[in-house]
């Protein structure tokens, strides 16, 4: 088989060295009753040509050539060719976690650059080398806050991504965290500060908000921070649309920032792999989950990088570790690193401005449900029509419409969350505008 670099004669030689007649003897020590003699009920191996063919066929069964207005945590941004060019280098693609610094400086250096750029973007002091994704970064941040404050009550905004909140509940379920939610304002679509004020108390360890929130609306971080800090709680700020950081005030008043970098040249890929991050203030470093790369020197005094502060991690601390995470999303974080390098300071700003302009053009054609300021997605009202009905019209035009919100927000059953990015074309937005126009009622 092409993945097995041995000829049969080589196998025989090696068995001989091991003093064995046949390969089966290698398993002779296994208890009879655990050995499994029947062949696996899987079809025989196929050629590369057939593999490509098979996945081409599957790919063709998915949407192809559709314009899409889906956002809601996963955004369609252009992926510079440089990104796959870099991550396809075998030296990055097929290397392991850089524990052996002397032959891993390539990976270590890119992670150090990644940590630096995430700090520059978020206004935090330190950022880790990645988490699985944005959704799992949320409970990790909440647990971190609990370790820091010794408090286990968590208040999460209802306009945090619904699936992120579900993940938080799953992690919380076993009792270490007690999670409650607070509402949003029905007119502005921003979080309801008064509701938070009513619910927050001195047992509250963390307040969790998202900005831009799930409705695409920019939250007023400072006032939440003040409220949280007044009660001795930490503020955790989440972002799902990293491109927004190109133009929005960074969440400097947060204690912990947890986010998703999918927007940085990471393909939607039906939900993963993506890259989450956790960034925080200097003083919380030792409670941080995940890997960290630090600068140091080699024995000759040259600058060098290595994994550091490992005493937080499971392979040293075991049950006392700050998290159980081991394998993370290094290669995906590298994609984001290359993306940030390609766009740079001006590019990220200009990219954000284009997203802003496109989304606001789209909103000018529709009836926005909320009044709060938004970045590249917003909630539109269907004027009482079923979102499904409008989306069906659009599908006929090879357009995938927005996300219907009823399933998460019954009160928004006639609302759709639509996203526009630099890739969204005006003619498609105009189509969407037409599809939303009230259908003339037969008298």
């Amino acid at each position, binding site marked *: 088989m092409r993945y097995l670099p041995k000829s049969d004669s080589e196998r025989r030689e090696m068995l001989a060295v091991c003093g064995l007649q046949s390969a089966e003897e290698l398993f002779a020590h296994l208890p009879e009753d655990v050995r499994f003699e029947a062949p696996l009920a899987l079809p025989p191996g196929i050629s590369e040509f057939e593999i490509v063919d098979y996945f081409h066929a599957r790919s063709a069964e998915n949407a192809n050539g559709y314009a899409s207005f889906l956002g809601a945590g996963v955004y369609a941004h252009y992926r*510079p060719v440089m990104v796959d060019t870099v991550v396809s280098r075998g030296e990055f693609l097929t290397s*392991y976690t850089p524990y052996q610094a002397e032959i891993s400086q390539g990976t270590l250096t890119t992670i150090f650059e990644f940590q630096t750029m995430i700090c520059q973007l978020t206004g935090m002091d330190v950022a880790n080398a990645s988490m699985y994704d944005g959704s799992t970064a949320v409970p990790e941040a909440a647990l971190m806050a609990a370790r820091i404050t010794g408090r286990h009550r968590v208040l999460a905004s209802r306009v945090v991504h619904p699936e992120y909140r579900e993940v938080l509940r799953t992690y919380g379920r076993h009792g270490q965290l007690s999670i409650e939610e607070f509402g949003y304002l029905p007119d502005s679509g921003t979080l309801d500060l008064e509701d938070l004020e009513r619910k927050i108390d001195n047992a509250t360890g963390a307040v969790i908000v998202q900005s831009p929130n799930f409705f695409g609306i920019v939250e007023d971080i400072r006032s939440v921070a003040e409220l949280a800090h007044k009660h001795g709680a930490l503020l955790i700020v989440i972002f799902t649309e990293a491109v927004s950081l190109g133009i929005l005030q960074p969440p400097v008043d947060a204690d912990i920032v947890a986010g998703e970098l999918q927007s940085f040249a990471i393909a939607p890929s039906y939900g993963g792999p993506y890259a989450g991050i956790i960034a925080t203030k200097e003083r919380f470093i030792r409670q941080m989950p995940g890997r960290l790369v630090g600068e140091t020197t080699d024995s000759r005094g040259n600058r060098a990088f290595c994994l550091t502060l490992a005493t937080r991690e499971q392979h040293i601390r075991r049950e006392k570790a700050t998290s159980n995470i081991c394998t993370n999303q290094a290669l995906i974080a590298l994609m984001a690193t290359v993306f940030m390098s390609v766009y740079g300071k001006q590019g990220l700003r200009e990219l954000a401005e284009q997203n802003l302009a496109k989304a606001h053009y789209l909103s000018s054609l529709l009836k926005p449900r909320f009044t709060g300021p938004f970045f590249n997605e917003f909630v539109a009202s269907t004027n009482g029509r079923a979102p499904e009905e409008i989306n069906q019209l659009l599908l006929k035009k090879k357009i995938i419409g927005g996300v219907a919100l009823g399933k998460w927000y019954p009160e928004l059953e006639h609302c759709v969350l639509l996203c526009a990015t630099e890739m969204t074309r005006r003619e498609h937005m105009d189509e969407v505008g037409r599809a939303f126009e009230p259908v003339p009622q037969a008298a």
Partner: protein
Amino acid sequence: MIAKVRSHITQNELLLFEQSSPGKKGYQLPPLDVPPVDAATVLGAANVRSEIDGFPEVSEVETIRHFTRLSTWNYAIDLGLYPLGSCTMKYNPRVNELVARLDGLAWAHPYQPEALAQGAMNIMARLEAALAEITGMDAVTLQPAAGAHGELTGILLIRALLEKRGNPRKKVLIPDSAHGTNPATAAIAGYSVENIRSNDCGSVDLAQLERIVDQDVAALMVTNPNTLGVFEANIKSIADILHKKGALLYMDGANMNALVGIAQPGRFGVDVMHLNLHKTFSTPHGGGGPGGGPVAVKKILEPFLPLPRLKHLRNRWTFDYKRPRSIGRVRAFYGNFGVIVRALAYILAHGGNGLRNATVDAVLNANYIRKKLEPHYDLPFKAPNMHEVVFSDDRQAKHGVRTGDIAKRLIDYGFHPYTVSFPLIVRGALMIEPTETEGKRELDLFADAMASIAQEVETDPELVRSAPHSTRISRVDEVTAARRPVLKWKPGTPSAKPAD
């Protein structure tokens, strides 16, 4: 004699920030086809940031050179043997990279209509079925993002079942040979960890187990083959002991590369286990991730699996969200789909018999290495090993050379080191896993290098203690890195000579 490498020039390279100059550009955007908006007006001036301090400004050619140059500082599977025990660093087929990038898959949005996602759902369903067959379990979830994530999922499933039975219980038992993620996981899941000592074959001690399993024990997390590469011969009795007391058996499947096609955990008493797609199923490690940590369970645990679940209804795949007893989501969306695609491509390439042949070669390679190195290194546990073998630095320690030093010296010989000082039950462990994708010649060169180092330890220990000597940077000061952490670039730094 060093036969595998020679020294050659490699380019130095500054950090992006040190190459940045205002106005350099690596991008261009298409012209805007809608009216521009004033950010301050639509967002409110207070919400608009000033420029991103220190963010790089470099051109496209500098970007490709930056990352190309840095890449040459790495070792990788594409360059040679990567014998990290417990990590299963095998060849990553390139066709898998191609298919994962097909437009219809790479650009699929998790919320696109199910009718326009049948291809993706089909791929997931097919991998779930294949993994169920390989493990001999009843159901599989692909949602966990990595092994540790799968462990957490598995323990939460156990907790959910026990809760339903009336008592979640307090403790999870973990052998002292286990990987760090096991205890860390149990803790996050709200269990206290009780470490159990391995017997002198490195296996679980049945008598001891009998003694400590009681109504407080929720589960035992066992790795099989264990981290010594030794199959737990008593696995069925272990399962019986637990089951008799209403506890469950969790299996860490990180070492499945020793069992695929040879033995099915579902048939030897395991209730729940995880797999590492980035180990056994060849998806690239990418310098630390991404991975995939599917969890396979027996029927009794199936109702508790994370939602949504794939369901086949009227010739169409659909997601089932109506699962009242589910533990809920462990992550957003459906898992690391891109990794799932690669793992399925790997399974399709090998097929049923092919997967078994791969296992046989993996075990053959480990036993071959064992035979070749036994004359030179101490083998603390003599039980027959499967896909990996663990030596100790006992003999070399007498000369003041530890496993970490031998590892660094291996670098001079052109190899990535084995796993150092794990498992903890072996003092100064050398944990070696060649995997099946290594040929005889590469293994012989490795064995020769290890033998030669053993020689050097006796003739010139300092040479080994101060290794590596041929890399672009010498041994790194990890102590200072941890004592005075510098975790991001600041203007004015570096104090030390940069690699330029």
